[in-house]
């Protein structure tokens, strides 16, 4: 790879770094902001409650999938086409996606309805509006996810090797802080907008949850103009080589098919009244899962034989890297359980939809107690890694998270005090956060110097993959459990709205408890690869870098 002349003044480099971090931060913010906004969206678009969970879940998982998919190959595209061009295009895509989300129930929905009618279908406009929102979210994520590896690659262009660690860490931090703060920011904003509306200060329907996405547009345009200007003088390194189109297709197919397959069974829950009816998932579930696994297999086979692979999968053969990656997947899986369960519990506690803004704020604040300790625990995680190696802090973190999830799974009744819930979420969050630094360090230190940018992105991508798989499979699990338990209780009872509402509450809390225990189980499973990481310390590993095999 050719390198660009490093003639920029350090101050200008830092300015560029700050500029490219802003859209990375906003893109990551939008990854989790939806958890606070989604109840308001479901009410506003008049999505039926019976279908909202599995349909609206795609507003979350669609973003996650697209974010992870685009992250997997856009760094490589920027190697070949040029960073500035790719970064600016991604930013435009993100802005366009934000506009689509904010105006999803307007012209875009009209267009989709017209297309459906041309095809002979007569869809409910509410469902089409939700589909428009999901499409907008996917477009957003295609831009946002791509900006992470492209930004990391830009660091490689702007900074000499010995100075890259800090700016790479800054970008990773911008990404992490973004999705850590997303739900809190969303909750605070929803409450604030609601208060303004109650006070009569807001009249336009656009000044509702939509404003959280509209706000991305002016910010994005300003960043677009400024980065276009500041990056104009930077010579773009374009590597000679070929883009691995097949690899990109295979990994995209694998992501989409696996998530569709895992999420497919939600359709089987509609109107189900007995366990027998749940025995058969939809016909497309199995082919999707098989197809997804086949695409994943083809991706691995192709990457191992391709001259210019998207990712150097041979790294997985190195013990430290392979075990860190598997652990990271499970960390993402467990993290999603906390992220999804808390808003559901808070919403089911509300009996009046006019209190949804309050629920959004409560969800955001409770998630704050999961996310902030998680982010803060990265610091002691780093210190413990340098002192005791990778294995000890990862195993300790997983054990602490296991305790946190188990406490929630065993004690939550739905009427718990926020203090107790916050305390238990803090334990789980701190435990998961403790694993971040050693996992990242293990992965990055396993790679050769020129691979560290892409490996940094890969670490985030693997965690996101764990989160998307978690989201798809848990939605299926939770819906099936809620439907079966509700049918078992209500089916034999007298028709009564109050009894039905109470049953839904009890059943939902029970399912959330089961999810939390599942989270504890996932942490337990993750301990296996964590303990296999070996006791190597970063210094020992870097001493012989890159390590070809076990670092024990």
């Amino acid at each position, binding site marked *: 790879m050719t390198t660009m002349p490093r003639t920029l003044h350090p101050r200008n480099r830092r300015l560029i770094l700050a500029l490219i971090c802003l859209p990375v931060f906003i893109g990551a913010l939008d990854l989790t902001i939806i958890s606070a906004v989604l109840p308001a969206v*479901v*009410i506003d678009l*008049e*999505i*039926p*409650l*019976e*279908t*909202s969970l599995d349909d609206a879940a795609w507003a979350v998982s669609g973003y996650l999938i697209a974010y992870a998919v685009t992250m997997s190959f856009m760094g490589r595209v920027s190697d070949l086409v040029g960073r500035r061009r790719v970064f600016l295009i991604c930013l435009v895509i993100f802005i366009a996606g934000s506009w689509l989300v904010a105006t999803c129930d307007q012209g875009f929905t009209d267009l989709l309805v017209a297309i459906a*009618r041309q095809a002979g279908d*007569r869809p*409910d406009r*509410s469902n089409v509006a939700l589909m428009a929102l999901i499409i907008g979210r996917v477009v957003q994520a295609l831009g946002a996810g791509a900006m992470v590896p492209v930004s990391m690659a830009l660091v490689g262009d702007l900074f000499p090797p010995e100075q890259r660690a800090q700016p790479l860490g800054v970008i990773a931090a911008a990404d992490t802080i973004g999705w850590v703060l997303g739900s809190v920011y969303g909750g605070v904003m929803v409450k604030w907008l609601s208060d303004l509306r109650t006070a009569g200060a807001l009249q336009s329907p656009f000044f509702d949850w939509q404003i959280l996405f509209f706000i991305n547009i002016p910010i994005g345009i300003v960043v677009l103009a400024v980065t276009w200007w500041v990056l104009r003088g930077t010579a773009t390194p374009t590597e000679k080589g070929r883009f691995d189109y097949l690899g990109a297709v295979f990994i995209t197919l694998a992501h989409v098919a696996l998530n569709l397959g895992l999420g497919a069974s939600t359709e089987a829950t*509609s*109107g*189900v*009244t007995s366990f027998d009816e749940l025995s058969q998932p939809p016909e497309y579930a199995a082919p999707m899962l098989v197809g997804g696994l086949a695409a994943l297999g083809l991706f691995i086979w192709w990457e191992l034989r391709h001259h210019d692979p998207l990712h150097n999968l041979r790294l997985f053969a190195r013990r430290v890297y392979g075990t860190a990656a598997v652990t990271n997947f499970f960390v993402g899986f467990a993290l999603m359980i906390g992220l999804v369960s808390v808003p559901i519990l808070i919403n*089911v*506690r*509300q*009996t*009046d*939809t*006019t209190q949804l803004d309050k629920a959004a704020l409560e969800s955001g604040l409770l998630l704050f107690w999961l996310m902030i300790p998680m982010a803060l625990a990265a610091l002691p995680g780093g210190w413990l890694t340098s002192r005791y190696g990778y294995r000890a802090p990862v195993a300790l973190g997983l054990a602490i998270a296991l305790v946190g999830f188990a406490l929630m799974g065993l004690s939550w009744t*739905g*009427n*718990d*005090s*926020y203090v107790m*819930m916050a305390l238990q979420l803090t334990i789980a969050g701190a435990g998961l956060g403790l694993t971040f630094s050693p996992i990242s360090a293990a992965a990055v230190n396993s790679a050769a110097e020129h691979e560290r940018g892409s490996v940094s992105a890969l670490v985030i991508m693997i965690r996101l993959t764990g989160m998307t798989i978690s989201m798809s499979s848990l939605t299926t699990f939770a819906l099936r459990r809620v*439907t079966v338990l*509700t*049918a*078992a*209780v*209500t*089916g*034999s*009872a*007298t*028709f*009564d*709205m*109050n009894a*039905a*509402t*109470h*049953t*839904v*509450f*009890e059943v939902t809390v029970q399912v959330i408890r089961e999810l939390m225990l599942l989270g504890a189980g996932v942490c337990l499973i993750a301990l296996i690869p964590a303990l296999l990481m070996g006791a190597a310390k970063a210094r020992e590993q870097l001493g012989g870098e890159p390590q070809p095999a076990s670092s024990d």
Partner: protein
Amino acid sequence: MIIITLVALLLTACNPTPTPGPTALPDPRALVTEAMRATRATDGFRLIIERGGAPVYIDQLNTIEFLRAQGQFVLPDQIQTTVKIKLAGVVGQAELVAAGLDQYLSHTTLTGGVWFKFIFLPGFDPGTMLAEGGGLERALTTVKDLGLVGVEAKDGTEAYHLRGVGVGADVAAFTLGLVASYDVEVDAWIDVATKRVVHLEVVENNRPLPEGETEPPVWTVELYDYNDAGLAVEIPEDAVEPESTPTLVPTANPAGTGS
């Protein structure tokens, strides 16, 4: 001779056989009679009922707001729809079957997916929708100022557009019995080719509006897929009859909340 022939051909070309002029529009009342006969002659159709404008409530306590229904009608008196409602701000959907005066309701949460037999929509009788001399026929034949607006494309079909002012009760069956008995503006579209009713719009501009509402309720009814092979209404044979009158309104905070 040749010149005369050419001139004759030219003149013929310039004066082609006159094409028929625009078809004379039929008499509106005769059209209604023919449309009802053609519609009644079918096995059934699918339908979508949507409400716009001011909210209309299903229950007398004004808590359950009707939004939309999509389903099928099998002549003479059976209807099966998925009804979308809003209760305490939350949107849900229920399955409704009506056969004559019998009504059946199933809801994932409310009834745990079990069919219950009880009168969910008081006064609603699907048999009156297309009844001879009643329902839509009476609504359209007794309307004041019935007029034929013209021929226009509606839902992809070339249709006659009729307009008049009728009595709400006569078109109520097309809105699951929810249109009030005030005078209503009725627009009907009748397929030019089949003479079947394909679209209705009912504006309740005489209905008293809830506080804060300015637009009257507007009902849009689409009728399509006439005689489709898949049309069938399944009457839930094992429906449960509730022991007491169902409680449709939730009390506040049934589960309690944390501190």
